[in-house]
């Protein structure tokens, strides 16, 4: 599903943020991505959700070589990937419901076809009563849950999450972990970047540790 071979990344003429990163992820795998702040976790995730392209090395996603991928082929691959952004990236002018439904809407689905799915998911993450609220009135934890709901609503094959439990209390963090494990059990491949050692311990899944741009499997 994911294969990186000696991937390097740098911004402009700056130093390399990622150096010779090599690993592969098979369908159904569940990995945590850990490392100190500034180690390059977010940059690595940006490569994987195709917001950036590697400056060297090979990156294959769903069997496609990202280096030679045309712009027109990106949407089809991105629709197979769900992303939970660290800064949520909810649209402030859309309701929580519309934010969560966004991936289905851009895929061309009619609102009547996804209404129940979205409301069920909002109910599951405890936001059903906030479905009409705009993101600016949501708390940090609520925004986090809305962002997670948006990432999983289209049942992606690969879920990438950047600090998905960073703004929630331990109880909700545990519930979210159960959601991730359940999605993984149903076939979604997971890669979760986190600082939360408790979360990693509870899940008992392999860890990719990134330090000073280099990656090790722990």
């Amino acid at each position: 599903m994911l294969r990186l071979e000696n991937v390097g990344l740098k911004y402009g003429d700056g130093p390399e943020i990622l150096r010779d990163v090599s690993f592969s992820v098979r369908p159904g795998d569940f990995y945590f991505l850990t490392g100190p702040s500034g180690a390059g976790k977010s940059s690595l995730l940006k490569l994987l959700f195709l917001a950036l392209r590697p400056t060297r090395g090979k990156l294959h996603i769903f069997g496609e070589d990202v280096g030679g991928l045309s712009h027109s082929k990106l949407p089809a691959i991105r629709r197979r990937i769900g992303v939970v952004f660290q800064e949520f990236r909810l649209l402030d002018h859309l309701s929580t419901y519309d934010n969560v439904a966004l991936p289905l809407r851009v895929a061309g689905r009619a609102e009547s076809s996804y209404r129940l799915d979205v409301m069920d998911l909002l109910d599951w993450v405890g936001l059903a009563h906030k479905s009409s609220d705009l993101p600016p009135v949501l708390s940090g934890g609520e925004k986090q849950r809305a962002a997670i709901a948006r990432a999983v609503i289209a049942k992606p094959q690969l879920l990438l999450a950047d600090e998905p439990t960073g703004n929630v209390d331990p109880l909700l963090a545990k519930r979210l972990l159960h959601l991730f494990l359940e999605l993984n059990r149903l076939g979604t491949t997971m890669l979760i970047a986190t600082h939360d050692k408790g979360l990693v311990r509870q899940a008992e899944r392999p860890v990719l540790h990134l330090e000073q741009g280099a990656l090790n499997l722990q």
Partner: protein
Amino acid sequence: MRPGAIIPATAASLTSLTVTMAVMCYLACLAIGALILVDRAVTSWTSGLSREMTVQVRVVRDADIAQEVEKARAVTAAFPGIIEVDILDEKAGEKLLEPWLGTRSLAGLPVPRLIRVVTDTENPPDVTALGQALSQVKGATLDTHQKWESELTRMARALSAVSYAILLLISVSAIAIVIFATRAVLQANRHIVDLLHLVGARDSYIARQIDGRFLRTGLLSGFIGVGLGLFTFLLLGLFGGGSESGVAAASRGLLFSTPSIAIWSYGLLFAVPIAATLICLITARVTLIRRLGVIT
């Protein structure tokens, strides 16, 4: 539950574009109005001129002008393609000279005599042969008005070319303004565009979220421009320098002419909102697709 607009109308308002495009459309209406008026005036003048010719008989020594005039009339009237031959009397000739010589009597002056000739437009006469036939008459020359007609046509063509050039410049300026506005909207909504890309939106989907606003802007500004243009012609028709004024009469002619002409005039004027809408829509769509293609 109706989904909210993905690109909010409040981000990067298109009010300035609407005002600018309305002004462009107003100028386009004036240029089209001028084009219609010039075309109509030239058609009217040239059809009058081409239907008529003038035979001029100058006073020649040792010749009786009355006899020569009568001879010229007979030669002309006998020619095929001539419908009417009308000798203008001396008073009519003097009246034509009034603007230059005043109202005093011209008795004693060798004032040429004129014969008005009306031709059959369906079966026009051979003017060269007529000119040769008239050379037998002392002092007679044939004026076909071709010189005036060609002068008028040349002037009209120049005015039409200027009007077309103005329309072209307006269109190019409008395209440039729409490109600038599209980029501004895209830049103001960059965070939304980036997110839409990341959740799998195609460029065409994102463009559709934006270009609808440009369609409405084009249509609205087009109708405002045409409305202002028609109002201007109405004001010129009512207060453009009295009923005898050329501008006032021409403006009234543009607004209140016969149905067949009015349909053509109003059709051209109402092509402005359609053109404005197409310029806004196509330019915005092409700009969006090109810009979105370089945003990953």
